[in-house]
């Protein structure tokens, strides 16, 4: 018996040893690469700006004002970040709940992207809020349950935990901790259902955040349907980001992809492309209903109306059509461009609602435009995500199956 446990701990140790070697190799591959230099520069700049942010306050690095309390850290990092991190929940729901097992290979990359996406949202919020160390206060001290933001916060934190647990099996395989992994795998369905509930709640309530400000958001974007718009658009954002990401990983991690992944890529683009086209069509319909119930047709002729049409026709109707054509012709290139168009459209929508069509009534002198340091910090945070993805994907079984596990 003692001898057995000794051998067991020896195997664990040796797998830890291997894991460490993988980590060193992944770090080397990431930083000693054509992009490595760029990563290092951006990260150094980001660290300097971080010091500036926490010594000079928000005024030192942002263009935020009393009229414009939220800038791109909310509009881009939080709103767009969460929408684009929806790939995790749509993929795991498709595979584990709806039974599309042939897309199983796409679950891990999608979960990892979602997990890192939410992690970065939380990082970004630490820059944005005035006293980040108080972020637990609403949950432990005084619960402001009448606030939509309370719901957003609670769901984001809980969903982040769910994503962490969904991500864990890959990490445990890398570390060689078989027993713990087995326990976690058993929770897959429950975690997936939790994930869908929490995503439904906070994806929609990010839209509900703006329900309280009908006098500030342009009437074409303000609607009592905002929560529904946000949830539905997160679904096609999720499908599109998974398609886009699978195209990207094919390009950059082709060597780390196994055969199933290469073969499945086409299947995935066709299946998710079809789904995205359908959901985009549904979204287009409810957006039209939104204009109709409020009878805002006459606003479409104004400059804001034209901008609204650019978003609705150029970044909803067009990708919907492109997806449909791409799927019919089995043309992966068209599907890829449809995905890119959709992702840009979701980003545009979130920026419109939080920044561009928000405070539209103010004179231009009082309007917001981000400071370059705000943009730089956002770029820094996104870069952290890309670097983390590269490192994790090169050392853990994300884009390929681990040979020791075949369930």
């Amino acid at each position, binding site marked *: 018996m003692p001898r057995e446990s000794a051998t067991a701990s020896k195997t664990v140790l040796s797998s830890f040893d291997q894991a460490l070697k993988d980590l060193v190799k992944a770090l080397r591959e990431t930083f000693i690469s054509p992009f490595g230099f760029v990563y290092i520069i951006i990260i150094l700049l980001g660290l300097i700006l971080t010091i500036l942010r*926490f*010594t*000079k*306050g*928000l*005024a*030192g690095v*942002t263009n*935020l*004002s*009393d*009229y414009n*309390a*939220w800038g791109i850290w909310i509009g881009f990092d939080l709103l767009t970040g969460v929408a684009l991190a929806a790939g995790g929940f749509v993929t795991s*729901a498709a595979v*584990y*709940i*709806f*039974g599309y097992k042939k897309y199983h290979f796409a679950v891990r990359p999608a979960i990892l992207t979602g997990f890192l996406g939410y992690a970065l949202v939380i990082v970004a919020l630490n820059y*944005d*809020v*005035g*006293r*980040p160390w*108080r*972020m637990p*206060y*609403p949950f432990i*001290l*005084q*619960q*402001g349950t*009448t*606030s*939509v*933001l*309370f*719901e957003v*916060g609670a769901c984001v934190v809980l969903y982040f935990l769910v994503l962490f647990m969904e991500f864990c099996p890959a990490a445990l395989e890398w570390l060689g901790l078989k027993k713990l992994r087995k326990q976690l795998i058993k929770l897959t*369905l429950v975690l997936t*259902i939790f994930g*869908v*509930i929490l995503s*439904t*709640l906070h994806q*929609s*309530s990010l839209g*509900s*955040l*703006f*329900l*309280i*400000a*009908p*006098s*500030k958001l342009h009437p074409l974007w303000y609607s*009592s349907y*905002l*929560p529904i718009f946000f949830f539905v658009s997160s679904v096609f954002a999720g499908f599109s980001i998974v398609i886009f990401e699978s195209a990207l990983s094919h390009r950059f991690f082709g060597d780390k992809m196994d055969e199933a992944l290469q073969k499945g890529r086409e299947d995935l683009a066709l299946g998710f492309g079809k789904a995205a086209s359908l959901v985009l069509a549904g979204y287009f319909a409810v957006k039209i209903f939104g204009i109709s119930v409020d009878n805002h047709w006459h606003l479409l002729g104004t400059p804001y109306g034209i901008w609204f049409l650019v978003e609705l026709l150029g970044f909803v109707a067009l990708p919907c059509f492109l997806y449909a054509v791409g799927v019919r012709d089995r043309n992966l290139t068209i599907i890829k461009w449809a995905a890119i168009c959709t992702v840009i459209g979701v980003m545009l929508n979130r920026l419109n609602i939080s920044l561009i069509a928000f405070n539209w009534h103010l004179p231009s002198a009082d309007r917001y435009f981000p400071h370059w340091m705000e943009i730089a910090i956002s770029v820094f945070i996104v870069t952290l995500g890309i670097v983390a993805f590269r490192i994790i994907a090169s050392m853990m079984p994300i884009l390929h199956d681990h040979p020791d596990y075949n369930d």
Partner: protein
Amino acid sequence: MSISRRKFLGWLGVAGISTVLDKRVYAASNKHFSGYPDSGGVLYDNVLCIGCRDCENGCNQVNELPQPDKPFDDLSILDNKRRTSPKAYTVVNRYDGIKDAKGPVYRKIQCNHCLEPACASSCFVKAYTKTETGAVTYDSSVCVGCRYCMIACPFEIPTYEYDKALTPRIMKCTMCYPRLLKGKLPGCVQLCPTEALTFGKRTQLIKTARERIRKYPDRYIDHIYGEHEMGGTSWLYLSGVPFRDLGMREDLGITPAPELTKGALGSVPIIVGLWPAVLTGMYALSKRKEKIAREEKEEAVATALAKASAEAEEKLSKVLTEAEVKNQTAIEGAVKKALGKVADNQTKEGT
């Protein structure tokens, strides 16, 4: 069981009382919240305002705000439009050249102390309180600094100390809540030399305002701003010119802010309650589909196998029969041949 006359009358009585009680309960319920009873407020009458900025000065003193660059009696400040800031809870702006106005018209800006405040409704850590005095107060000791209140406020009142690195606070008028508790007037009201500002019970202020409009219909616009805007505010305004000419929004509606998010928040329990059932149902359906597919496949395989073996058997028996027939023929042929040979031999021997 028999019903006595007395019992019957008793029941009738109970039924009667309960209908009455029912109505009373309904009438007393706060379905429509119109503010704490006897809560205070301030009436600002811009017809009486001379734009002297004494109110700004009073506010600055009692709230111990930093001294401004230019003194309060420097009225050149009024040449520019200002808004509330972390250094000024209240500001007065001057509007020149308004149609039908005899001279400049002033507008004092500060927190309106809504009856159902958007800031309080939007705060996820309950830093805001609508107190029974009417004042909306803010507690910086719990504030996280998310600034959602600034997004939510329809009057664009809360301001933020963006330049503080570690201890930024929201800064806004508190209606001098600490002074109210001591029975004192708000700082601005205290110093106002013309009674353009009147502190009192909100219900009384509305009566006062109506009275002024009734007495001097040619001096006032027939509207008390704040009586119903955003569900009503504790600060009320009378004006001699249309409110929109003073940059005051007339399109805010009368819906209190909490109503705007009520529906969305109300859907949370529905999603939490029903989604698990729907999703598990979906899962069960996809499992069932899989099971049926598997069974159909198995059945198809079994049928195919059965068919194949039947065919094989048939073929075999056919072949066997054929072979037998062939054999038989061969034997018969051989026998015939042999018999023929024997007969031939016999004939040969016979000759």
